[in-house]
């Protein structure tokens, strides 16, 4: 099987100036992810699970180590050393990151934000319209919410919108940081369903889930990290 992501000796230290502190969070984390594999990351709270995903997505800068990713556009690329422009492209077209925190852009309707997402990966306007509706419906967002601004949505509705936005892109690599943390059981089932579907269609995934039952049967493998 082809490796899509290979993390080697990933190190991350946060240096805070006020108050003066140094937080060594990751030390020599290494793992590979095969294409179509679903890797779960487990570890105590504060062990650095989110930091790993955020380094891969490049929201956090890597202190030391390599994150080799096999990109459609750029071939084998070290995300830790890629140019900003390359990361922006990869985020638009190849890698998605979903967390329980949603940043809704003000004054963009739910429908527009999912459509924009689809347009970013190169869908035509008609395709984007259709797939946006399909996704909003899939995540059971009532259609009378589609054309309003989501800052009024409940937490669960925002989260489902967030998921619809990421999933509509059918990303090659999906980074999931406790996306189901505040969802009810029915919504969790929907999330699970779409993850299984995308995984079958070829997406590779790394996920952090507080709910181990949710991971059971979903992840092919787990990576255990311990608090330093």
């Amino acid at each position, binding site marked *: 099987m082809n490796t899509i992501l290979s993390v080697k000796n990933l190190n991350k230290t946060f*240096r805070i*100036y*006020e108050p003066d502190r140094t937080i060594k969070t990751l030390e020599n984390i290494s793992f590979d992810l095969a294409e179509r594999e679903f890797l779960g990351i487990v570890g105590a709270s504060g062990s650095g699970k989110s930091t790993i995903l*955020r380094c891969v997505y490049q*929201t956090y800068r890597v202190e030391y180590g390599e994150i080799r990713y096999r990109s459609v556009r750029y071939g084998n690329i070290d995300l830790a050393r890629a140019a900003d*422009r390359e990361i*922006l492209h990869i985020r638009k077209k190849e890698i998605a990151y979903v967390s329980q925190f949603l940043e809704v852009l003000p004054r963009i309707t739910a429908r527009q934000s999912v459509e924009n997402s689809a347009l970013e990966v190169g869908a035509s306007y008609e395709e984007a319209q259709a797939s946006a509706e399909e996704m909003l419906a899939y995540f059971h967002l009532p259609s009378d919410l589609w054309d309003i601004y989501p800052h009024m949505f409940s937490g669960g509705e925002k989260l489902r919108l967030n998921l619809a936005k990421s999933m509509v892109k059918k990303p090659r690599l999906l980074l999931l940081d406790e996306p189901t943390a505040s969802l009810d059981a029915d919504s969790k089932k929907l999330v699970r369903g779409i993850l299984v579907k995308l995984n079958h269609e070829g997406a590779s995934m790394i996920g952090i889930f507080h709910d181990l039952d949710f991971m059971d049967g979903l992840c092919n493998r787990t990576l255990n990290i311990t608090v330093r």
Partner: protein
Amino acid sequence: MSVNRLTVRYGTGCSDCENGIGLQKNRCPKCGTIWALRDAAFSLYQGEVLGVVGESGSGKSTMMKCICFDESPTLGEYTVHTGGGNAFQLSRQSQKQFRNERMGMVYQNPMLGLKMDYSVTSNIAENLIASNCKNVSHLRARVTELLEIVEISPFRMKEKPKYFSGGMQQRVQIAKAIANNPQILLLDEVTTGLDLSVQAKVLDVIKKIIREFNVAVILVSHDLAVIKMLADRTVVMLDGEIIERGLTDQVMEDPQHPYTQQLVHSLL
């Protein structure tokens, strides 16, 4: 486009400050020279939004003014993708033409960008006429179209901007700036000083322009929230220097410089 070693100083400089020694903020106490901008370098790519953030006096406007040729730097190279060479060394005439055809600038102070006693139409049409659109019905059609983009009723095209609210004046400036479909749009603190609800409307218009036209934008603001909402990449300025740069979420979530950390924490 890209700029390198961009430096603007007011004063003669001395052996100390020219080597970066002894500066208090951006001022040399020995010779009194102000280094408004020092060794700034960045690139701007097609279709991206670059945020420039920093406190008042950090050199943001000076940088914008150099880029649109309002001001000549003390030192610096400016590469634009048409033709090689240093654009700072072009003739005034070529610089003016380049600016008119390929750049739009929106000033924080609408008095700098608009002639307050002329109609909205003549303000916006000025750029069109300068690039040889002289047919009156074409002009009117284009002005109407531009006003619709910035969400001002074309019925008001004969009015003078001095009677408009601050938010509307900014939108007229934006209409003027995008009149010639520029490749580069410079927005200098366009929402600063406006009421929140008015800000939202101006930001909406900017968002729409970013989405619908393939224009590269430099968005200057001391307001991190605005930058966070719109910019793909961000540079942080302090005392005339760029002290940090990166993807906008990197700068916000994993700030490296003490000043950036302070700035980000004040947003939370």
